[in-house]
């Protein structure tokens, strides 16, 4: 009896395991438009006549909180719970040892363009199909800035403030022409601690929480002054006038009260809450916030981040899907990934609300439905950058270390020289 029982359960387990491996399980980025879009393309794929029953796609979504920590443990322990998993530009290097490179469809180059494909490459190999692209916008309150530009007394005050804090008399300008100096002057002018008559409490919100994603938002700033993580010879170049200038300007704004005093605990949600309350004039934020911010403050306009001596830049990173090395249904997984890199799939993904970075010829088909994607694609190809070393094995740790050191400087717990010495030492260790 017991033996038969055991045999029975063994058969049951084998049966369950069998059905599990007969599908392609895809671990996606949970919540938000990425999930909606992935669901749509998965349905489309499963409905194709040439997709065998055992190769149909089954989606798996876990928690956003601790997503990458869990993924790290899953992959390192050789999980077979999914065949295809999410990767991001900054974490490819970390997960690559547990994944397998893939070959994309022939049209992938034309669909996405080389810049976007490169966000999913590590060590010269393609590890994923790019699905979503993230970059940063300058969000500003057009109503406030128009009013400022129409008022001569206000302009004079603006110039006085700029001279006092930045050492030069600046005039209010259209944000499309802003340099970071203009950004700073505007931030100061619209802060009540500097200008008691300001209609908003703060001129800007800088996300200064000790969190790696905040470093990505910050990076467009030093980059426009010529910053990079390392030079082509592999020397760490973080201790540069470019980084120092941007760090000092951000701290100056924090100390002057141009960003909320609690900014050192602010991340995405807090910054959005501040902006939507109507007490902030302009800020740099992820493109994903566009809908939320515009809905709450209809006078909100967007442009690429301000420019610096070296030009205008926006930090880009991509999300994508790649192949788990321990996958139980590799062939099925590869077939799905190849299909995902066709223009049919990319367009369906975009139509369902995703934000793929598409080449201009591809995105033209969508111009009417998704004008925002045209903007994202244009900014990505014109201003997009990834730091030298930004896709290396330890890129994630570099962002972590910068978050700790830079926020320490902003909060006043350490000086700039210490900060630079610490981060140089850490990055030398991490990027060697």
């Amino acid at each position, binding site marked *: 009896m017991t033996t038969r029982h055991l045999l029975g359960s063994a058969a049951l387990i084998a049966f369950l395991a069998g059905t599990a491996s007969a599908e392609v399980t895809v671990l996606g980025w949970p*919540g*938000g438009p990425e999930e909606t879009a992935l669901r749509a393309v998965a349905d489309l794929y499963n409905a194709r006549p040439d997709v065998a029953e055992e190769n149909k796609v089954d989606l798996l979504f876990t928690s956003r909180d601790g997503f990458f920590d869990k993924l790290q443990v899953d992959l390192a322990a050789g999980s077979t*719970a999914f065949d295809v998993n999410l990767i991001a530009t900054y974490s490819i290097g970390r997960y690559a040892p547990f994944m397998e490179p893939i070959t994309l469809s022939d049209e992938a180059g034309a669909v996405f363009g080389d810049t976007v494909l490169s966000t999913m490459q590590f060590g010269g190999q393609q590890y994923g199909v790019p699905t979503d692209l993230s970059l940063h916008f300058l969000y500003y309150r057009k109503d406030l800035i128009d009013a400022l530009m129409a008022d001569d007394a206000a302009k004079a005050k603006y110039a006085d403030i700029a001279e006092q804090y930045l050492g030069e008399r600046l005039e209010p300008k259209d944000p499309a022409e802003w340099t970071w100096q203009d950004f700073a002057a505007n931030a100061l002018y619209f802060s009540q601690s500097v200008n008691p008559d300001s209609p908003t409490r703060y001129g800007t919100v800088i996300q200064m929480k000790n969190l790696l994603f905040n470093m990505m938002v910050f990076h467009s700033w030093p980059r426009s002054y010529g910053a990079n993580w390392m030079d082509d010879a592999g020397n760490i170049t973080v201790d540069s006038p470019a980084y120092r200038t941007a760090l000092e300007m951000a701290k100056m704004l924090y100390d002057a009260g141009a960003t909320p005093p609690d900014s050192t605990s602010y991340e995405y949600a807090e910054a959005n809450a501040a902006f939507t309350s109507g007490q902030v004039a302009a800020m740099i934020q992820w493109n994903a916030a566009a809908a939320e911010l515009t809905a709450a403050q209809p006078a909100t306009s967007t442009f690429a981040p301000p420019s610096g001596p070296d030009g205008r830049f926006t930090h880009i990173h991509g999300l994508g899907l790649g192949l788990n090395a321990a996958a139980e249904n590799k062939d099925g997984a590869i077939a799905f990934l190849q299909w995902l890199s066709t223009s049919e799939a990319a367009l369906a993904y975009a139509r369902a609300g995703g934000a793929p970075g598409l080449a201009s010829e591809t995105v033209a088909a969508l111009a009417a439905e998704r004008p925002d994607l045209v903007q994202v694609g244009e900014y990505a190809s014109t201003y997009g950058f990834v730091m030298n070393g930004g896709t290396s094995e330890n890129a994630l740790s570099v962002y972590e270390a910068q978050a700790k050191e830079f926020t320490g400087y902003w909060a006043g717990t350490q000086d700039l020289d210490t900060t630079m010495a610490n981060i140089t030492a850490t990055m030398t260790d991490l990027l060697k």
Partner: protein
Amino acid sequence: MKRLGTTTRWIVFAIAAFVMNFPVLATLITAFKAPGEVTRNPSLWIEQPTLENFAAVLTVSDRLNIYHYLWNSLAAATIGAVLPIALCFPIAWAMARRGTGRGVLFPLVVNLRAVPLIIFAIPLYMMYSALGLLDTRFGLGLILAVVNLPLALMLLVNAVSEIPLELEEAARMDGARLPRILTRIVLPLCRPAFVTTFVFGFITAWNEFLFGLMLTTQNAVPVTVGASFFFATSGGGVQWGMAAAVMIVAALPPLALGLIMYRRISWSMVTGAVKG
């Protein structure tokens, strides 16, 4: 004079209840605000009360099923709260009465509480994977029991040492052997401590997040992890109203337990009197 004292006590209670529960109260209010109102109106007054947040949380969709998460948490937390009591009770008596294991076992177990047990995530994951315990309520319950062992041991040792020795000695005079003494004398007198330990353990297990995240994917997802599914349902940042509603729903079962327990506490008052 006596009435004045009572009034002051009520005032102290009201202040303590308000201050300690302020974040919960604010969250409860936020849960009834429409998404747009949360940042527009931070006050404790709701302009247009709405149930849409709760409706969204309580609706079963393709992916989200709050009842499933609640059931998983209930099962895992019950295992995680009961098992430590059963495991610790016998040795707690020996520790309190005979000093058994005081030198090694006691500090060993108690200090498990000081170490972030998540460092065992990888070996546990491998072991669970081999034993088929991954993504099961039972597997999650076992590790939650480990989390609760230190507290259970401390509280039970403390409880046994508070039981008057005379009662046990009297029974021994009557010729009772150890098993009989434990089950007939010590066990009943420890019941209040069992209740307290169970409640603390259940709450701790219910609220555990990291193991729930690491060791489950679909079938055994506990409500703390499931709740975080709701936070970002419309992209990007935290949806405060929705987050507030799901936090309230997730806190209700342990809260109900707390409400039931206050009767237990009055009950333990009675046994306290008998004890003396």
